[in-house]
């Protein structure tokens, strides 16, 4: 009996370990499961279709072309490779201003026929209508071929306009560049500060100062990101705006400042641990050769700990890339490829946080956001693996 209970407990412990272990795999599976549907969806919003006059030689339009047409930036079919004919945009609602309710029949069952008439008589028309009202086999109209959203539309697309009609654009490049820009500048600020403080703590500071600084850094790590975001919003945004002479203080640079502060504890604690692993014998040897403390630090200790410091920096980057709320609150969130660090940017995590609430479950926007989550997951996973490789390489060297 006792043996049995022992076995049972051991089994239970093993099970808990396994559950923990497979959580990461579950996360990957679910992200991809929710996101992968995107590439089976057509570029035009679900349940809608685009009709043109049958005389029109155009068979299909790309999402970008559609966007420019419906924005009024492309006004002639010539610009998309068609005939010299002005484009006439027809939205479904217009049918009610052309025909009376009586003419559209009971339960609107004459709508397809009337739509057919409108399209047939307008050679330059492009009509964006619900699929169910599209007249089948009707003379004089043509349905544009609906393409599926491609990998390159997503990963190489330069515009993120997830709610654009008729064809939303899911190009993640602006978000990816935004994320990288903000994190890159943040880490440029955080490296000298973080590594410097780590050196100070590990090598120079006396016990009293260490006892003051260590808890302070732990506290810095404990402050919730939304509080950092709030601080950034009310303090840093106005400062950046004033000193930079900008119209808006919500810029990539503001985000970087906040992220730099947030990445500091990670960098400091890991780099400090790395510096402390330098064997005492090496320091003693250096001191015995006549080097002073500072020479020992930068000629012996830092080179010895360099891979640990590099790992610290890489993990700091990981922290910065994944940060959501603080960045969401201070970067202004314009989904445009940034040209300078004093422009508003939108990062991947911020996009998910800001848009998922409004994206209808199971729709293309929803799927695109889950794929963004998967992209973010892969980036941070790669970073943590790289950090691990860097720090384990040192072990081999020893």
């Amino acid at each position, binding site marked *: 009996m*006792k043996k049995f*209970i*022992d076995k049972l407990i*051991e089994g239970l*412990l*093993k099970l*808990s*370990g396994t*559950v*923990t*272990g497979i*959580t*990461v795999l579950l*996360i990957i599976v*679910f992200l991809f499961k*929710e996101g992968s549907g995107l590439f089976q969806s057509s570029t035009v919003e679900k349940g809608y279709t685009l009709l043109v006059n049958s005389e029109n030689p155009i068979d299909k339009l790309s999402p970008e072309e559609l966007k420019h047409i419906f924005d009024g930036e492309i006004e002639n079919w010539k610009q998309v490779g068609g005939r010299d004919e002005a484009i006439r945009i027809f939205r479904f609602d217009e049918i009610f201003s052309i025909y009376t309710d009586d003419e559209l029949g009971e339960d609107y069952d004459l709508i397809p026929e009337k739509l057919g008439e409108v399209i047939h008589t307008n050679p330059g028309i492009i009509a964006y209508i619900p699929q169910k009202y599209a007249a089948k086999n009707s003379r004089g109209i043509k349905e544009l071929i609906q393409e599926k959203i491609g990998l390159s539309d997503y990963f190489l697309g330069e515009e993120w306009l997830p709610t654009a009609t008729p064809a939303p654009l899911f190009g993640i490049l602006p978000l990816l560049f935004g994320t990288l820009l903000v994190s890159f500048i943040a880490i440029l600020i955080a490296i000298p500060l973080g590594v*410097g*403080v780590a*050196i*100070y*703590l590990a090598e120079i500071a006396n016990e009293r*100062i260490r006892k003051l*600084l260590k*808890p*302070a*850094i*732990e*506290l*810095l790590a*404990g*402050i*919730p*990101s*939304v*509080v*950092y*975001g*709030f*601080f950034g*919003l*009310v*303090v840093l945004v106005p400062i950046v705006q004033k000193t930079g002479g900008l119209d808006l203080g919500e810029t990539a640079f503001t985000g970087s400042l906040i992220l730099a502060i947030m990445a*500091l504890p990670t960098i*400091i604690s890991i780099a400090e641990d790395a510096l402390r692993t330098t064997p005492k014998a090496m320091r003693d040897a250096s001191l015995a050769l006549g080097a002073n403390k*500072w020479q020992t630090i930068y000629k012996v200790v830092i080179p010895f700990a360099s891979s640990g410091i590099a790992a610290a920096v890489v993990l700091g980057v990981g922290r910065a890339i*994944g940060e*959501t*709320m603080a960045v969401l*609150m201070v970067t202004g969130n314009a989904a445009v490829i940034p040209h300078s660090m004093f422009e508003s940017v939108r990062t991947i*995590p911020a996009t*998910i*946080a800001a848009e*998922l*609430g409004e994206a209808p479950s199971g729709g293309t926007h929803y799927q695109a956001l889950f794929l963004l*989550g998967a992209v*973010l*997951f892969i980036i*941070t*996973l790669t970073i*943590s693996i790289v950090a691990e490789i860097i720090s384990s390489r040192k072990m081999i060297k020893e």
Partner: protein
Amino acid sequence: MIQTKKIKEQIAFSVFRLLGFMVLGVLLWILGFIIYNGIGVISWEFIFSAPTDGMTGGGIFPAIVGTFYLIIGSTLFAFPLGIMSAIYTVEYAKNNWLTKFIRIMTNNLASIPSIVFGLFGMTLFVNTLGFGDSILAGSLTLGLLILPVVIRTTEEALKAVPKTYRLGSTALGANKIQTIKRVVLPAAFPNIITGLILSIGRVSGETAPILFTVAAYFLPQLPHSIFDQAMALPYHLYVLATSGTDIEAARPMAYGTALVLIVIVLLMNTLAGIIKKRFEKNK
């Protein structure tokens, strides 16, 4: 020559000292700013009443209650699971493939951005398992987030228990389970508690994981069951700071909420520090 060497050293050291105090300065700046602006807002009414006048008046009681429930829920989920995983990897399977797998996965789990936990919690707990936006879904999501913290602190706590304890217990005829239960766990307990306290600090501040799993903008009444939505402090601060009807008028409320959040984190860190110190002294 010796002169320049000495001067160089002194310059370098003062630069590093300056950097150290800069970081301290940044912390004091943030804390000072929040405390200075928030202290005037804190009152009995602010803590114990619901928001009124479109979030520009009243208090934050529902958010405090919501965060409290999330703390309870997530620790109830993460602690048994995390402690048992740690016991398994430290006490039972020292170096088999499962231990290695668990260790690698725990490390990776710790590096996953919190918004990804939010996405995962939304698909698994809210949609697939059908919990809806609820305290249950939010607690489970937050529980996953703190799981690596729990496992790591427990592992470290267990490893810090001297081997002689275990040998002594075994020599007295206790079997493995008895040794773990009566000797190892009690000895490791204070350090495990430190992990618990730190993860409470973490849970009370996380916003991204609860955005789509539990957080409500405003609720007229307190939640009645674990299947209800709840307000939570960090989300409340986000709402007050960015999307209220009158952001300027809601500012004092935001300062007050930020201060409450900071106080929770400060309290948890201090508490963890005290317990750790006492434990080290006893050793």
